[in-house]
């Protein structure tokens, strides 16, 4: 048994009946006890993967192994998984206790009422919903319903917990609270969890690792901070990060990177960060807003169009090649709208992409 590959997905492919190829040759593995986020924009295939893992959909090609054993031909109920739906799917006619007990009192391995109640009570204590036992789901808040759904998913003591956008029905403040609760809960139970979300911030904050999808392909499978510091490609760089990354069109010549308003000497870049030899031509230079800052010795001069305050920081907005560009600065920096300022880039923090999106620096 390899605990590093508790869940293993091999060359998974899914083509829907209408011919849409939702997943194209996806492979990844999940460590036992990890909380992994499947992140991506809507329609990227992340929910399809979750449903294939759950057995609600059959893969067109490829294999899925739980704990070293292939489960592709195993019925959902025998996969030892818990599933939390986006809308929770709590039974409205049952009380909270009855909902949580439900998995234990149905099917071939049903337990006695007393035993089921004991187990249900244990998980209701864990999710802190004991005092809601006799309420109907309709009377509960979104966060409470969420906890009931999780308790119900856990009572059969599954080995893997699958959650499909479990926070999307909650308001912003509650989302922050519940996502921490979910993390500490699954960690205390020690269950391996796959968590689907489209919210990068959510993924960054709770995932042990993140798998970012787009167009049915894994874009990056990595620790959270690496999406930020070392994005695999142009898509990752632009998907992760708030405010979003700044992109500049540039042309590479023998020893320079030239844009419409500035020129960078190639010798100023860190040579070790080049992924490969690059030919002359068109490239995209991307830099996170906190790495492009006002400086009297700056690379180019521009006018501040607008300033947005986001708590501790301010975002300065400029126009460059008819596109908006942002710089993240400290709240105290004395710059006003309409000021003419010079900007500098931290060259060891910029990225260079080919027009196809491949990262070369």
């Amino acid at each position, binding site marked *: 048994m390899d605990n590093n590959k508790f869940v293993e997905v091999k060359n998974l492919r899914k083509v829907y009946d209408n011919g849409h190829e939702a997943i194209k040759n996806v492979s990844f593995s999940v460590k036992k006890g990890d909380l992994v986020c499947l992140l991506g924009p809507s329609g990227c295939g992340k929910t399809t993967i979750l449903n294939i893992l*759950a*057995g*609600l959909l059959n893969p067109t090609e490829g294999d899925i192994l739980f704990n070293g054993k292939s489960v592709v031909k195993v019925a*959902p*109920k*025998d996969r030892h*998984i818990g*599933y939390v*739906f986006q*809308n929770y*799917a709590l*039974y*409205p*006619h*049952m009380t909270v206790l009855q909902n949580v007990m*439900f*998995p234990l009192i*149905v*099917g*071939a*391995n049903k337990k006695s009422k007393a035993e089921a109640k004991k187990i249900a009570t244990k998980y209701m204590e864990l999710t802190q919903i004991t005092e809601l036992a006799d309420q*109907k789901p*309709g009377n509960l808040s979104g966060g409470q319903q969420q906890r009931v759904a999780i308790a119900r998913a856990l009572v*059969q003591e599954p080995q893997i917990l699958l959650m499909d956008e479990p926070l999307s029905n909650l308001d912003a403040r509650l989302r922050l609270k519940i996502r921490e609760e979910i993390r500490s809960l699954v960690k205390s139970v020690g269950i391996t969890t796959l968590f689907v979300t489209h919210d990068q911030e959510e993924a960054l904050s709770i995932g042990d690792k993140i798998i970012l999808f787009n167009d049915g392909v894994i874009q990056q499978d990595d620790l959270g901070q690496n999406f930020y510091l070392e994005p695999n490609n142009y898509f990752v760089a632009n998907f992760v990060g708030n405010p979003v990354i700044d992109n500049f069109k540039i042309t590479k010549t023998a020893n320079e990177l030239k844009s419409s308003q500035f020129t960078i000497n190639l010798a100023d870049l860190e040579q070790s960060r080049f992924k490969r030899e690059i030919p002359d031509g068109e490239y995209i230079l991307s830099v996170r807003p906190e790495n492009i800052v006002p400086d009297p010795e700056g690379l180019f001069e521009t006018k501040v169009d607008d300033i947005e305050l986001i708590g501790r920081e301010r975002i300065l907005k400029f126009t460059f090649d008819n596109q908006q560009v942002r710089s993240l600065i400290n709240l105290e920096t004395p710059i006003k709208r309409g000021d003419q300022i010079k900007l500098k880039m931290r060259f060891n923090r910029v990225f260079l992409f080919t027009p196809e999106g491949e990262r070369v620096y």
Partner: protein
Amino acid sequence: MKTNQKKAWFFLAPTIIFVTLFSIYPILRAFGMSFQSGSLIDLRWTGFSNYQYIFKDPEFWLAIKNTVLYAIISVPVGLAISIMLAWIIFDKVKHKSFFETTFFMPYVTSTIAIGIVFRYIFNGDYGMLNFVLRCLHLHAPDWIDDPAMSLTTIIIFGIWSSLAFNIVILMGALRNIDPNFYTIADMFGASGRDKFWRITMPELVPTITFLLTMNVIGAFKIYTSVYALFNGQAGVGNSGTTAVFYIYNKFQIVGTPGVAMAATVVLFLIILFATFLQRKMMKKIGEY
């Protein structure tokens, strides 16, 4: 606020006038007439004499007995069959809309026309039903012409004709159940029985309550199907008479509107009581 209220009365007026004229007034008038005797153009107040008359009339008691029996047999049986069929169509059948349309057809067809068709089906000598029964070597009774069979025939017909409406409403209710309820139950390993009794039935309770109320009220007002089945009679020797048949007979044929109205008031009280009773019962079974 004041002007608003005046305006409100203005907008409510058409409804109030119509409801008063065609619902409230007839109810009060019927109630009043039940204490009057004589023909419609010459009514006199005679106290409780109409009530004394009907309570002594064996035909009235037969009508009430038939109606109550009809209601307490045809409604639960009809509803149970409807639930079963709706569930089968919903769960197992492809091309649901085709079957739904087919099942709904009897509801939009005239009861008289259906009744005439059923007269042929039920015919003791050449009817389709008895043909089938004889093929299976079963007893083939005389459905139409045997007084002892009248009520049974009416009940069978009643059950059959209640299916259409019930199934369509139940299908709608089934469709409204979140499919994830079943997906998740499957994941927990729930059997088909578990799913039906623990999810489907409880989810249908509000709809069943509604249908039960409608069906019970409809059953107590049974008239047309009897009329159609027995060619305008209430069965051989009035054996299949019902409350409404009795009322109609006393009003139009015998010409004693007071007696008819007394019977109407009694029927009204029975329906009120039955509705109240089953409401209480369904509330106990559980609502959200």
